[in-house]
């Protein structure tokens, strides 16, 4: 951060969000106006003064953490592009939402990377998918699509290759029902176009500099390549996208001097499916199972963030019943179980990365399997849980976790659900965490591999919008469950895990501590479940509608997921009765944004450490690439 300590005399007496926005409006009258669209919040800042005012927001008002920066295309509703920023204080509290608008043609909004480095990838994403240019951005290249991609797919007038209709449900499904495959109507190969300036022949060029330079990396390939002979020991190394250590199709291009990394550039998008475009074609309800596929290790948490965002919107309308207490308790239980699954998985695979191949992870997976079996019995699926609904859940716990034998599947199990949970929470999971610690925490090899490696300083962690264990491992006690509590977390007793060192070992320690805190929460949930047994999970006793209409407005629902802050930014452009499909559906994916500081975290370490550093960030590509 270029402006670390706040000089006391500059600190303003604007403690609440309202005071902060009032201050901005009075101090910068003309440049800052309140966003008074129905159901919207925050301020709109004149883009000419955006950088200057953003500095004030960060330094004078203390909103030092830029959580999310994303764009919305208001085609037909003002015909402008809008960047929406959510800034928070790491001391806790709500968001200061500010926006900047620009025309749809030749859209330019100044880059905020100089204020918050965490805006880097998010602005690149906005350029890639929305076509907004950010003057001042150090490396404004496409990030999820390749550079031969035609157009900016999240713009409202852009249509995908297998386009059918603007919004679901499609008319051809019922009552006419003319079954067809998408590729029969849009023949593959004929349904794509290339930007006129792209030279398709160049794509056949496999020379080194063509391969790397087409990617628009920050790595200066020419400088290194041009040196002839062997005078230099600096060279470019490509890791991935099919590399066993990258946890999926993820690629890193590094320059190394001998074995020491001098720069690193993450390359992603190999698993990109434009989740957000799909989400905007979908109805609100359709999106829940799609969120399962983001961070597929903890789908319960993904569901939770999304239903919270939609419930925020619903609460602006009439006739909204918040979920019942039992429903909230069940949600928290499921999410905490997912967190345990996530951290066991993260630690296990991180160990794989640093060389403890598969023995530890398989010990931890035993508990994971049991938790997933429980999810399967309750929600119907082990990983793609699709469990939460707006204002409720798919179903209450079954009385028994039971299977019925049939001809093909004959290994039957039958447990009492509450007894199973009690034994898991009181005995098995704590025992596994003890084992995990016995196996690892004092293991000398692990200590030597991880202490002092991959260091991310406290200031950098905040500045780069790191989230989750990555942020807390760098000494920032920021956990959304405490900083901006949701659901029934305020009444639960738990501590925010935090470690000061900022290295791989600190992140490991944070995860272990969070495992224990999750068990502590679960122990408090059990009596709450028993006390509410028999209570409905729906406020009015019956399941919600299959096509809810959501009132006009915007919402940002965020939860502390296993990998960090998972946020959903939603815009509903409904008229009076509300809308069945979201106008804008954006996912603030922790795995994606946590990669922003990967470059600075790796500089100066060895190639073998890079693998471990990536593992200690804990990413999942379903969420990174979306």
């Amino acid at each position, binding site marked *: 951060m270029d402006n670390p300590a706040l000089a006391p005399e500059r600190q303003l007496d604007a403690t609440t969000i309202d005071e902060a926005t009032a201050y901005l409006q009075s101090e910068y009258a003309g440049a800052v106006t309140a966003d008074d669209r129905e159901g919207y919040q925050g301020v709109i800042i004149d883009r000419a003064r955006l950088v200057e005012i953003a500095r004030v927001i960060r330094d004078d008002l203390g909103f030092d953490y830029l959580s999310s920066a994303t764009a919305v295309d208001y085609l037909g509703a003002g015909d402008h592009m809008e960047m929406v920023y959510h800034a928070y204080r790491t001391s806790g509290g709500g968001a200061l939402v500010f926006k900047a608008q620009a025309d749809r043609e030749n859209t330019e909004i100044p880059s905020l990377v100089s204020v918050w480095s965490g805006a880097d990838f998010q602005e690149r994403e906005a350029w890639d998918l929305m076509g907004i240019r950010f003057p001042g951005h150090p490396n404004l290249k496409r990030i999820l699509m390749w550079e031969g991609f035609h157009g900016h797919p999240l713009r409202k007038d852009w249509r995908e290759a297998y386009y059918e209709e603007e919004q*679901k449900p499609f008319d051809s499904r*019922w009552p006419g*029902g003319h079954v067809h495959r998408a590729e029969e109507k849009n023949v593959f190969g004929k349904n794509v176009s290339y930007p006129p300036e792209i030279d398709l022949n160049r794509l056949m060029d496999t020379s080194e500099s063509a391969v790397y330079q087409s990617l628009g990396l920050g790595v200066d390939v020419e400088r290194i390549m041009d040196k002839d002979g062997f005078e230099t020991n600096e060279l470019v190394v490509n890791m991935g996208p099919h590399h066993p250590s990258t946890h999926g199709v993820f690629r890193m291009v590094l320059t190394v001097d001998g074995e020491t990394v001098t720069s690193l550039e993450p390359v992603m998008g190999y698993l990109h499916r434009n989740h957000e475009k799909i989400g905007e074609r979908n109805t609100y309800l359709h999106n829940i*199972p799609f969120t399962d596929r983001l961070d597929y290790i903890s789908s319960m948490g993904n569901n939770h963030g999304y239903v919270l965002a939609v419930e925020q919107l619903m609460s602006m309308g009439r006739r909204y019943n918040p979920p019942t207490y039992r429903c909230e308790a069940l949600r928290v239980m499921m999410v905490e179980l997912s967190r345990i699954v996530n951290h066991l998985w993260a630690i296990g695979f991180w160990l794989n990365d640093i060389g403890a191949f598969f023995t530890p992870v398989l010990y931890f997976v035993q508990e994971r399997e049991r938790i997933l079996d429980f999810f*399967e*019995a309750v929600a119907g*699926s082990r990983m793609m849980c699709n469990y939460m609904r707006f204002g409720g859940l798919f179903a209450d716990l079954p*009385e028994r976790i039971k299977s019925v034998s049939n001809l093909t599947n004959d290994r039957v199990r039958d447990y009492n659900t509450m007894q199973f949970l009690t034994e898991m929470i009181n005995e098995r999971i704590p025992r596994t965490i003890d084992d995990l610690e016995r196996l690892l925490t004092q*293991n*000398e090899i692990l200590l030597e591999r991880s202490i002092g490696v991959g260091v991310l300083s406290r200031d950098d962690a905040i500045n780069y919008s790191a989230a989750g264990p990555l942020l807390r491992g760098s000494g920032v006690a920021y956990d959304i469950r405490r900083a901006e509590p949701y659901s029934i977390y305020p009444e639960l007793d738990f501590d925010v895990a935090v470690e000061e060192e900022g290295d791989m070992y600190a992140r490991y320690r944070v995860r272990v501590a969070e495992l224990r805190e999750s068990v502590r929460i679960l122990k408090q949930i059990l009596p709450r479940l028993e006390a509410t047994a028999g209570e409905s999970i729906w406020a009015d006793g019956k399941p919600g509608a299959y096509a809810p209409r959501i009132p006009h407005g915007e919402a940002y629902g965020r939860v502390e997921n296993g990998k960090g802050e998972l946020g959903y930014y939603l815009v509903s452009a409904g008229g009076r009765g509300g809308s069945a499909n979201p106008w804008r559906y954006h996912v603030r994916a922790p795995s994606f944004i946590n990669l922003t500081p990967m470059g600075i975290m790796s500089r100066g370490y060895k190639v073998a450490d890079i693998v471990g550093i990536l593992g200690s960030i804990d990413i999942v590509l379903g969420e990174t690439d979306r």
Partner: protein
Amino acid sequence: MYGTGLAKGLLLTLRHFVESYADDIRYGFRKYHHSTDNFAIRQGTKTKGVITVQYPDEKVAVPERFRFLPFLIVEDEDHPTRAGKDWCTSCGICAKVCPPQCIWIVRGSDPNTGRPVPDPEAFFIDIDICMNCGYCAEYCPFDAIKMDHDYELASYNRTTHHIHDKKRLSKPNSYWRGIAPTRAYEEMLARGTWEHKDAAKEARRGTASSRSQPPRPASAQPAVAEAAAASEASAPAEATAPAPSVEGATPWSEDDAKREERRRKALERKARRAAKRGTAF
């Protein structure tokens, strides 16, 4: 002392090793003889060893709420008045809630008047696109579409096999009550009858009191007993003629027929083995 951390970890590994084999000895190596009796205990919360399931020799029976591809419910063949009739009324709700939009329904119409009738003329699900979310089953107001438990559907050709038509999708009501007795029972309580909503309504109106059975008593849990009966009746080992298989799906292409045939034979072999051992299958 340097190395104690390592040694502790190695002891833990040793403990896991010993516990796993201790478990095998405790149960007399029965898991290697296709015995199912201690499966629930060994996969439960009390077990200590590292126990895996030897798929495909051992197959875990999936819980009732498990969801894998939808199927349509039709009346059983022995239903007195509605044998073979679809429960689906082609209301279209499942096609609307389906997130990837993989359901196509042709609503039936009266040949004389052309007015829509509550009966699907055709029903397709593209199983390549289906994301197994379970919404169709959750929101169907007539309990006519349900999620299946049969997950072994690999085939060689995507273009000829993977759009399931109505024939392929339809399975008898007794099949559903067999795979998910508790849920079928709960649904019955919600409907107030074991019969289809509309059929029961008709019966109540008294239009034809003899055409439909009165709702069965909800006191005992008949579903469980019936389910057992249903699965027994269709167990291939006891079936003399190729009785309607429990899947209820008629093979609809040559490959499928072969696949079904292979599977049926495997099951028969398994049943014979089980009978020889005298254990419950």
